[in-house]
């Protein structure tokens, strides 16, 4: 696929262009948004962003895994994982725009 990578730098730049704040402040705000989302998830909340998707925390139970190299059984402890469910709007946007121009 196209193969470019977007990072915090581009997000800050977009915020800078869109809102009348300094570049520094824009970068800080991007960081604050991510942080606020992280903190909410750590509290176990679901974060729903309309027309984008939702992030939620799933509790996984203990299970027995195996070291694929040695075949040794290793217990995998209960843990929490983050799951992202894209909204239909996002899925449709991705398909509308990608499949239109690249049959691959």
């Amino acid at each position, binding site marked *: *696929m*196209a*193969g*470019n*990578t*977007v*990072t*915090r730098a*581009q*997000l800050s730049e*977009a*915020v800078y262009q*869109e*809102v*009348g*704040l300094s570049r520094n402040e*824009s970068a800080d*705000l*991007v960081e*604050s*948004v*991510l942080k*606020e*989302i*992280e903190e*909410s*998830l*750590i509290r176990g*909340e*679901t*974060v*729903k*962003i*309309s*027309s*984008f*998707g939702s*992030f939620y925390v799933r509790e996984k139970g*203990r299970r027995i895994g195996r070291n694929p190299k040695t*075949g*040794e*059984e290793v*217990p995998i*402890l*209960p*843990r*929490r*994982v*983050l799951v*992202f469910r*894209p909204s239909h709007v*996002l899925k449709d*946007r*991705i*398909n509308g725009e*990608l*499949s239109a121009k*690249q*049959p*691959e």
Partner: protein
Amino acid sequence: MVKSELIMRLAERNPHLYQRDIERIVSTIFEEVSIALARGDRVELRGFGAFSVKRRAARVARNPRTGASVSVEEKFVPFFKTGKELRIFLNSLRDTPAPVPAAAGPATEPR
């Protein structure tokens, strides 16, 4: 937490900003990520996670009720991989069950 609550919380922490601006900041961020994904780009936010687009090949599926074959076209799906720091952070706080000592587990003799 929904988008409006996210905006409210950010507004509380940034009393020097107009709520209207915070709304635009939040929307711009998700809009940029969506545009990038629609372009087929990857969005990598170190510590938080990375969004990418995965291709699902065309396949012949079945209607589970009638058993009839249906061809499903190739499609692209957004995918998110949690960042390392966030993954660790999620497991380091509060009600995470205390790790069970490995030795206490059932015998692991190979059969």
